[in-house]
Each structure stands twice: as C-alpha cells, then as structure tokens.
C-alpha cells in the first residue's frame, strides 16, 4: 500500500521555489529519511504532507488530500514538527486528558507506561521540563496513538546523544512495525543510518536521491586507497574524493566490489559522506548550468 504519493509537488514562497516538482512514493512499513541541507525544502514537503500548507500538484496521503482533509487525516497520521512545540503552560496530565479526549486512537495506558520509564511526573508543567524530557513526553504521546504514518521533523534537534539514542531506540523497539510508516528529517544523519529502510536526499526543492538502504549498501562503496593506486582507482570514476590522514578515500557508485577490493579497504560509506558527495556534485552541476 502506498502511504504517500506526490506528483509534481510544487510550492513557491514569493520568488523562492521551495518545492520544484517533487515526485515521491512512500510504501507502507518503511522508515524513510528525508535528508537535505538547510532550505532544501524538507520542512515544506513535510508540511504539505501534513496539510499545514497549500501546494500545487498532486498529493495523496493515505488516499486523502491533506490540505482539505487535515482533521480526518490526523486520525491516522501523527507528527512531531520541530522540538518543543508542546504548550508550555500545560501540565502533563492536561495533555494526557486532552489527547485522550480528542483522539479516537489514543491509548492512555500505553502513554502512561512510556512515561513511567522516564522522570516526567504527571503534575509537572511542560515549562518545568528539560528539552530532552519535553521530547520524551511528546514521543510518549505520539507512540500511544495507533497511527499509520508518523512524521518527524528534526525531532532530536538540540538534544544530547543519550536522549537521541534513546529516542530512536524507543521508536524502533516500542513503536515501529510493518503496519506503520515513519518519515523523518534530521541533520544528525549518523543517528538514523541504522534505523532507516529508505533514504531520500532533497536539494533545492528536488529529490536528488531516492533508494532503499539495501540499494544504498550495494550501490555505494567507499575505498581507502593507497597513494600509489590513486590513479588506477580514479579510472573507475569515483563520485567523490577526500583526504583522510594523507590517504585518499574515494566513493564509488555502482562499481564492482571485487574490482575495488584490489585497490584498498572497501566499506559502506556513511550517509553523511554520501550526502556530501551528492550535494557537492549537485551544487557543482547547478553552478555549471549557470555558467
């Protein structure tokens, strides 16, 4: 089942094109990372998916038009848009009451059992909680909702590594299953490398890479090449090259592993290295086009 389907999704703010004809499809049971530099259109794309902003083009989320049917859609879709959007005046118990009051798929007992594992007390006000605890609270509320699609926009921004690890750990172990779909944007790509099933890069309002993690692992290989073999390695047309401690690290796209093994140590690149390579090439190509 296709959870999100976009065709020619476009959004313009004044003269700035935030989304420039985005096509994408997200299948059920996936954890998709939407990765891109600042201002690439990540948040705009997510806001369109969540019915928070009008758009041009075709977009269906769980078969609904998000802009005109946001309130019905939110029965099956949940989101954490940015850290610390919980109302600061509210008590934890207020929020539990309110969400169980308005959400037909909210399981209060489940939210309370998540909260029991944290230091958050029911009588606490959101303003009294630390940033990490607010995120834990929001995650506890969201994970207790039996939603089909969960959208996370920079959910761990500004949190320390312990909270970040725990966040994704809870998400994978206590929430995710094959019936659910998660879309996440983050700049902390190393946190999600082993969480994602699918990877999308977005730049200048366009999707520049869209692959599954299996495809990512089989397609992209990184080789730490000995100095004397650099020329031979460059013959395989690396998409990116960088220097680490006096040795060259070359990143290849669709080059046979056996051939590369002769040149040096072969390994799967990190998402961030691929990101730098793809974005660098993309920016170069765009500049070339301007010139």
């Amino acid at each position, binding site marked *: 089942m296709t959870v999100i389907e976009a065709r020619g999704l476009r959004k313009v703010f004044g003269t700035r094109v935030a989304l420039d004809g985005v096509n994408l499809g997200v299948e059920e049971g996936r954890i998709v990372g939407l990765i891109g530099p600042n201002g690439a259109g990540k948040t705009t794309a997510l806001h369109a998916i969540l019915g928070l902003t009008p758009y041009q083009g075709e977009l269906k989320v769980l078969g609904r038009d998000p802009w005109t049917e946001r309130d019905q859609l*939110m029965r099956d879709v949940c989101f954490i848009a940015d850290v610390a959007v919980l109302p600061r*005046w509210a008590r934890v118990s207020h929020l539990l009451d309110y969400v169980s009051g308005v959400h037909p798929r909210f399981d209060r007992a489940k939210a309370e059992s998540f909260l029991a594992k944290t230091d958050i007390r029911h009588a606490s006000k959101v303003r009294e909680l630390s940033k990490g605890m607010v995120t834990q609270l929001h995650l506890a509320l969201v994970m207790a909702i039996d939603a089909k699609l969960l959208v996370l926009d920079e959910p761990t921004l500004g949190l320390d590594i312990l909270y970040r690890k725990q966040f994704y750990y809870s998400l994978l172990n206590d929430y995710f299953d094959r019936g659910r779909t998660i879309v996440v944007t983050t700049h902390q790509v190393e946190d999600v490398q082993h969480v994602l099933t699918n990877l999308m890069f977005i730049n200048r309002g366009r999707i520049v890479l869209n692959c599954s993690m299996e495809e990512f692992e089989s397609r992209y290989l990184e080789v730490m090449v000995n100095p004397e073999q650099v020329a031979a390695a460059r013959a395989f047309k690396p998409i990116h090259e960088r220097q680490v401690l006096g040795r060259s690290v070359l990143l290849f796209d669709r080059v046979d592993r056996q051939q590369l093994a002769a040149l040096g140590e072969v390994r799967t690149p990190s998402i961030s290295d691929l990101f730098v390579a793809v974005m660098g090439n993309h920016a170069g190509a765009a500049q070339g086009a301007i010139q």
Partner: protein
Amino acid sequence: MNTQSNAMPESLQDSQGIAPAVMSPTRPMYWSVRRELSENRSIYLAPLAAAGTTLLGFLISMIGLPHRMGGLSALHPAHQRESIALPYDIAASVMMATMILVTVFYCADALYGERRDRSILFWKSLPVSDLTTVLAKASIPFVVLPLLTFAITIALQVIMLLLNSAVLLASGMNVAMLWTQLSVIQMWLLLLYHLFTAHTLWPAPVYCWLLLVSGWARRATLLWAVLPIVAIAGVEKLVFQTSHFAALVGTRFIGDTPSVAFTPPDTFPMDPATHITRAGFLSTPDLWIGLVIAVGLLAAAVRLRRYQGPI
C-alpha cells in the same frame, strides 16, 4: 524496558484488531473548550478575584450599615430601593466590567498565543478541525464568560444578602425591607438578559473582529485591531467631517444598545433596570446586521487558521 517491549506487539495487534473507537462529534469541541480554560485561567480567576475584592469592600461598608438602615425608613419608598440596591448594582457592574475586560484580552490573544509559542504545530497534529478550534475559542466570549459572570455575580449577591441580613439581625433590626425592596429574582433575570444582549450579542462583531485579528497579526494584536478603526474614523472625519464610524464602533463596544437612549450620557448607569434592553431589542435590524458581520468575521478566522503556522 524489556518487559514493556515484549508486551508491545501483542497490544498492537489487539488495538489493530478492533474497529477504531467511534467518537462523538461533540467531544473534540468539549475538550477544545477545556483546553481554553486551562490555557487562559484568567477566564475564571479574574471574575473570582473581582468578586472577592467587591465582597471585601462590601464587608468594610457593613460597619455603618445599622445606622444607615435606621435612617432609611424615613425615606420615600423609591429612594429606599435605590439606597438598598446600590451595593448590589455596584457589584453587578464590577462583574460586568471585569467580563468585558477579560473578553477583550482573551479575544486579542485567542488565535495569537498558539502561534507565538509554536504549540499550533501540536494542536494541528490532532484530529481537531480549524472550525472546532475557532468555535471553541469563540464560545468563551459568547457562552462561557456570560454564564460564568452570571453565576459568580449571583453567588456574590447571595453572600452579600446573607451578610447584610446577618448584620441587620444582629443589631436587632427588621430584615423584611431588605428582602422586599430587592426583588432578587427579577434582578437576576434582568442581569442574565442584560449580559447576553448588551454584552454578548450586541458587541459580537467587536469580539469576532478581535478573534480574526488575533489569528492574523504577527505581533501587537490589540494595536492591529484598533489601528484600522482609528484610521477609518480619521479619514471619515477629514473627508466628511462626520464621526459615524467611531460612534458605531463605540456603541457596539460599550454595549450601548439601540433602545437605551434614555440613559443620560454623562452618567454611568448602575441599576441594570435603567439600561436593560427592551424585548424589542431582538427584532432590531442593527442587532442582526451585527450578527451577520460577526459570523462573517468568524468564518474568515476559521479559514485563516488553516493557513497559519507558528510565528
């Protein structure tokens, strides 16, 4: 941690097996109103504080009461009533003034606060429509505040009446005059009618205008609400040398309903009976024109909230 994560898959299957809970359409509305009350505690704290202060003032005034009541019986019955009812009318007026103030400040912040603290991103992540949210917010000035003000005023006046009677009895005086002159039931019915006509339905366009501006302005909502009115009034004065627009907005705001023209303009009427609107109020076209404008402004506020995000 382990026991919890082991238990999860079962409970997930359970919850997927059952049909999604059917939810009554009034529940989101009820909870949205509850949200407003816990977000804006001044809705009930301000009237309670005003009632408390009034009661304190009344207690102090009790000191000279037996002496004043003694002199009353010599007066003409009409003046007797005036003199006995005065503290009760003052109490009602204080409560009404409080209600107007709370309403204005509430409306000016209603759709602004959630954008300023970015919590709109949380509220919009739940299955509550913009219509429900805006109507819940509008229900504060149109339903909650008048009823609450009415209830607190009655409670206040009952306490005053009991205190009054106790002081009179203790000083060996007759309480009958107090009870016969006040005619409490009539006083309360008039109060209820007055609250809903002069201070709710009549100024409806003003309140809805404030709600709309609070959903639009990026800062200083009250300033943006007042500025266009001052500008229009100024232009009118310059071009036509008239001030109809300012007078129109002014009468709407103060609750000066069309049928109370007999109130002398330089005195603030204390007795609810003097500025009670007549039954004909409900059939005046001015009222209905105002209500149509109010509904239009509210519809614009609903539409606007769809487009608005955090600021």
